[in-house]
């Protein structure tokens, strides 16, 4: 058993929570956007470099955006209002157009935010052309504004908003025309925050949330970047944090800070995958597992008490899979054995000295004072080697009350080279200490079979906004349906279509 404990511990340690896979070096990434079967993001640098990914997990460099702009650089008016740098873009899809806003600073705080308009994101497409839309907003180098770091939101009323700014003065809000992407009118911008940059708005259930990045960038592991936020019922503010402090007076509830091997999170972008799954993109100033460079990440976005919560990427380890519907846990359908062995059913707790009970009128109670209860020695965790000798090679799975038994403890580990989905790789889900892996069957049910790496044994684990998990196989044999793990009764797991309004397909993953 000790050998397996060490194995599990070593495995967990050997599988750090990576920020994505592939070529993910980027600074100031835009909101991640999806088109034509690929995900895209754009960052700071010459020509606005492009990263793209087929699955949202493994990313590749895909050229630069300015290569598809006439002249290969910002338009003349953008250069005149700002400068010839190309930084920190953001992008939005409205109708048949993509509007990409980018920072074009000269000598800060003289800067402009330029607009590019395109109809496809695919650099391989002959339609991959971006038209210069000129500057949308700018700062003259004197005013309390530094027109960089655009962030765009199309609100539920169909109104398009742009926030921008950096430490020279205010974070500002202007309205844009969703048909053209241009500024809707030339009325004065609204100041909504200070002491920050990388601002962006999101909307949820009657609240506008302003997310900004505090601290300093661009110093590797010495960067103090952290993401903070406030919220308002009106898009124009005031944006107050959880303590009621206005962001225009420096307020901001912490959303994400340095953690683990990642220093300096910044540049929030919402990636709403629908059906209760939201994620957010960001960069870390320094990924200590990648030499301290700035990298892209995509993490779960959770919600609690009306505030967004930065979820963490799923970490390999040994878990119980508890149905939110039933409170029972997934297990192999084998005869379980109590941890520590069988005990007499009736009577007092172990060590109490009470050995039996029964209906009234039975034996006389023992004379004298009651025995002194005594605790016993610690009982070791149950290991498959103690109980699995009669387990069949292929086993049905079912749901049962959690009892910490070996057939209920699942090792969830990423599968190298198997691809993934936005923010995470595919995982295998295997009874710890065995090769019995959760497998989708031809008829849309489940079994546990030796791991082969087949698609029906690769699992996507998405954390939902309430913190529970949605778990589904990469493929179900015999169908193209995207089914997920579901509790159809107290004792029966199956695969079925995800219903975001139900607890049937919500799972709680915890330490056994």
């Amino acid at each position: 058993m000790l050998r397996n404990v060490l194995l599990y511990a070593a495995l967990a340690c050997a599988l750090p929570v990576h920020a994505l896979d592939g070529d993910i070096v980027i600074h100031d990434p835009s909101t991640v956007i999806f088109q034509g079967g690929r995900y895209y993001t754009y960052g700071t640098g010459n020509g606005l470099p492009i990263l793209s990914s087929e699955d949202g997990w493994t990313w590749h460099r895909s050229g630069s955006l300015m290569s598809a702009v006439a002249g290969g650089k910002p338009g003349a008016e953008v250069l005149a209002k700002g400068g010839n740098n190309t930084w920190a873009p953001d992008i939005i899809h409205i109708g048949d157009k993509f509007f990409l806003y980018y920072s074009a600073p000269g000598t800060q705080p003289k800067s402009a935010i330029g607009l590019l308009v395109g109809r496809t994101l695919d650099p391989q497409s002959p339609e991959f052309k971006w038209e210069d839309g000129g500057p949308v907003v700018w700062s003259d180098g004197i005013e309390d504004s530094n027109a960089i770091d655009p962030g765009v939101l199309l609100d539920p009323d169909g109104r398009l908003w742009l926030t921008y700014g950096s430490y020279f003065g205010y974070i500002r809000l202007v309205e844009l025309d969703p048909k053209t992407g241009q500024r809707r009118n030339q009325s004065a911008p609204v100041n909504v925050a200070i002491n920050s940059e990388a601002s962006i708005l999101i909307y949820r259930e009657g609240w506008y949330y302003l997310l900004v990045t505090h601290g300093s960038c661009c110093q590797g592991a010495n960067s103090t970047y952290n993401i903070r936020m406030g919220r308002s019922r009106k898009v124009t503010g005031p944006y107050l944090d959880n303590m009621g402090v206005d962001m225009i007076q420096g307020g901001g509830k912490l959303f994400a800070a340095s953690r683990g091997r990642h220093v300096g999170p910044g540049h929030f972008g919402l990636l709403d995958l629908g059906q209760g799954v939201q994620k957010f993109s960001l960069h870390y100033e320094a990924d200590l597992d990648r030499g301290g460079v700035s990298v892209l990440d995509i993490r779960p976005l959770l919600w609690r008490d009306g505030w967004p919560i930065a979820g963490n990427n799923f970490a390999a380890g040994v878990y119980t899979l508890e149905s939110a519907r039933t409170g029972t846990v997934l297990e192999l359908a084998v005869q379980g054995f109590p941890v520590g062995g069988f005990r007499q059913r009736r009577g007092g707790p172990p060590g109490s000295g009470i050995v039996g009970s029964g209906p009234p009128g039975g034996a006389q109670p023992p004379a004298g004072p009651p025995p002194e209860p005594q605790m016993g020695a610690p009982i070791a965790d149950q290991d498959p080697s103690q109980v699995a000798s009669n387990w069949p090679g292929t086993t049905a799975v079912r749901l049962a009350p959690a009892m910490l038994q070996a057939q209920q403890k699942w090792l969830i580990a990423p599968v190298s080279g198997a691809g993934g989905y936005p923010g995470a790789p595919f995982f295998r889900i295997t009874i710890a200490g065995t090769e019995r892996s959760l497998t989708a069957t031809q008829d849309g049910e489940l079994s546990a079979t030796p791991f082969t790496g087949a698609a029906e044994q690769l699992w996507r684990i998405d954390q939902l906004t309430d913190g529970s998990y949605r778990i589904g196989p990469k493929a179900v044999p015999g169908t193209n349906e995207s089914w997920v793990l579901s509790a159809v009764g107290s004792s029966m797991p199956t695969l079925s279509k995800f219903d975001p309004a139900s607890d049937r397909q919500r799972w709680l993953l915890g330490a056994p």
Partner: protein
Amino acid sequence: MKRVILPTALLCLAATSGIALAQEQAPRPPASTLTAPKGASQPVDARGFIHRWLVLEPVPVQGRLTETAVQEALKVAALPDAGDALPKDGDTAVANGATLRWHALDTSHYNVNLYHFAWALSKPTSNVLFWVVTTVEAPRDMSNVRLAIGSNAASRWWLNGQPVIALNDDRQAVIDDGVSPRVTLHRGRNVIRAAIINGGGATDFCARFLDENDQPLPGLTVSLQPGQ
């Protein structure tokens, strides 16, 4: 842990032997929720529950509730293979050396209270196995449906001869506790058989079919006509 609650009448019987003997021999009142079926068939209720069953008087078994013990109980209590044919009310069968009678019953509740059934017949309620059987008539082939049951305690279920649910341990009769894989109900007659094994205390079961959205399956009727 399931608690064994003895009815007051039983406690009195144990304590007052003379009067108790007279009461023991007197017929007990019938179970209040169980009556003889009326009419040739009966639809499932609005929640899909099956109310009409043939129930065999309890077969004495050890009543232990593990997978191996349940398998042993099924062997001990096995009945002669009757294929798809259903017994009739009043038929007898021999199981584990005991001659036992089939009872056709309608339950007024969503569940069948086997404790009341056996107690009313002055039969044991602990360490027993109950065989139950019924047929549901489907108006057409109905695929991707599931048999969903609750049982106190362990139970095994067969649909048209195929094993579909196995619950091996001590448990209460929770609606939809045990659910089968996706199955197809054939147009016409479909036979459900089950064995419910009880260690001690209350014992009952309920059963219905669910559609592919886990909603009660309407349109089924239940009958106890002998197999054609």
